[in-house]
């Protein structure tokens, strides 16, 4: 059943879109990530213009993160103070990201920017996750789990503007979440992702936040950053397709609820190694597309009407 998307200006199959939304939602619920890093490339693969895919992906993530954060909030797993600091950085970052996006869109390099960003970040993060979680799995099999020190001190802990985050049991420099939020905000605007795949590892490994509050807190921040990205893209490039976003949302939130239940039954290491693997697969697909000789070396884009 075809549906005409008013902003993307193409007809797509309704069930394909709903199926994609549901599948990505399921995975995002399982792994506690927004799923933007899967949704945006999938939308591009089925022929949605990349700019529309990024902006609409961000819009859809608002809904996904709201439904996710409410569940975590009820369990008390959201550090609002940490989330707010991350958010301040995120707002500025997404502003910069949207500006870069619009600039490169005019220069005809935005598709390359999107692909390269995906390959780079997915490659690094996926690789790290896989190595770490496989290591943890092996250790747990051998039964020699070393008890981690409660606090490890690096140069990071010497930074100024220290703040106390009670929920996260941390006393660290506010610069750390600010910079992290800013960086993730840039990625969010350029890649149409929530940035959970960067933020979650950074919060765990870099800032030392307890795993239990990490996902809820990152989702809380993602709501506002993706909302900001939606607004900015809507204002600068008019590329948010509300109809497409609604279709994706309606199926993704259902998928996510199911996914959360499946995820709760799996071990953390297993989840992380699976997620790492998936991230690397998407990365490999995008990298191949950059390297393989394209079917057509030429591409064209409409400028303003002349009549």
């Amino acid at each position, binding site marked *: 059943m075809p549906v*005409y998307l008013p902003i993307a200006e193409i007809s797509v199959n309704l069930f394909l879109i709903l199926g994609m939304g549901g599948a990505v939602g399921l995975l995002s619920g399982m792994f506690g990530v927004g799923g933007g890093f899967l949704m945006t490339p999938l939308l591009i693969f089925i022929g949605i213009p990349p700019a529309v895919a990024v902006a609409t992906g961000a819009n859809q993530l*608002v809904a996904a993160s709201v439904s996710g954060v409410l569940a975590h909030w009820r369990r008390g797993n959201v550090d609002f103070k940490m989330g707010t600091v991350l958010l301040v950085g995120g707002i500025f970052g997404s502003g910069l990201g949207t500006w870069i996006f619009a600039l490169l869109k005019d220069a005809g390099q935005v598709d390359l920017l999107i692909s390269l960003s995906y390959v780079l970040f997915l490659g690094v993060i996926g690789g790290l996750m896989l190595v770490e979680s496989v290591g943890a799995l092996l250790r747990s099999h051998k039964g020699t789990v070393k008890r981690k020190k409660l606090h490890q001190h690096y140069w990071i802990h010497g930074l100024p503007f220290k703040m106390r985050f009670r929920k996260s049991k941390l006393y660290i420099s506010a610069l750390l979440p600010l910079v992290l939020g800013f960086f993730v905000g840039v990625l969010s605007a350029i890649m149409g992702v929530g940035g959970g795949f960067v933020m979650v590892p950074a919060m765990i490994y870099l800032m030392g936040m307890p795993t239990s509050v990490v996902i809820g807190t990152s989702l809380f921040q993602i709501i506002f950053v993706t909302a900001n990205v939606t607004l900015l893209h*809507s204002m600068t490039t008019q590329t948010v397709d*509300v109809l497409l976003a609604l279709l994706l949302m309606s199926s993704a939130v259902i998928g996510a609820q199911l996914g959360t239940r499946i995820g709760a039954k799996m071990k953390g290491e297993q989840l992380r190694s699976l997620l790492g693997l998936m991230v690397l697969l998407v990365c490999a697909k995008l990298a191949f597309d950059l390297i393989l000789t394209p079917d057509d070396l030429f591409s064209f884009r409409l*400028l303003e009407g002349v009549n």
Partner: protein
Amino acid sequence: MMGNRSVFGLFAIALFCLVVAAQPSRADNTLVTDISSHLISVTSDFTGTDLLLFGTVTSSEGSLPADKGDIIVVVRGPKKNVTVRKKERVAGIWVNTRAIEIAKVPGFYAVASNRPVTDISSTGTLERLKIGQHRLSLSAKTTPLDVQDFRQAIVRQQEEVQLYTSNQSAVYFLGTSLFRTSIHFPANVPVGNYVAEVYLFQDGELVSAQTSPLFIKKFGIGRRIFDFAQSYPTLHGIAAIIFALIAGWIASALFRKD
């Protein structure tokens, strides 16, 4: 709109002069044509459509023509400037390195005829009337040696998505004077002002021509969303966010386990 109309007028006058100039002494046939609809509405369930284009050939005395001649039908879509980019391998990956701006590229182009256009008339005439997608005048702002590759890329890619077609359904003569053809407009057809041209040739000479306007417009909820996004981008963005917040909240409330 004004500019549009005046160009249209000029075109009509030019055609008229052409027709008059082509009038030899003998009695010539003329055309009466119409399209099944002058307005195509693109709604949210639009999957493409076919238009029927028909007409009659009559001799100048109003009787049935002795030789009905040849018919060529051309439908042209709204013209836009485009940027064509070419990828080259840079450090192992494919990157857009060169760009050429090409003016007045029709967003849609369909040609249909009762026999191959090159059999109907000379290349010179076809060239002048821009009949056939390879005879479009795609003028580039800069003209490097391989500019033809960039032009051909547009035609090739438009053909792939069926926006440029030739003889999808040929022109049929029904009896001695009535002819018909149908033009297919795919789902991805650009909106705007179109023009349908019908040319009557006799012995390779253009003897009559008719043009009729055709409009493709967005209608329904899709049109309203598009207009709203263009006219009120900030409100549109806020509305998109509110929808998302509500959708997320509803989902969460529905699936709440307690």
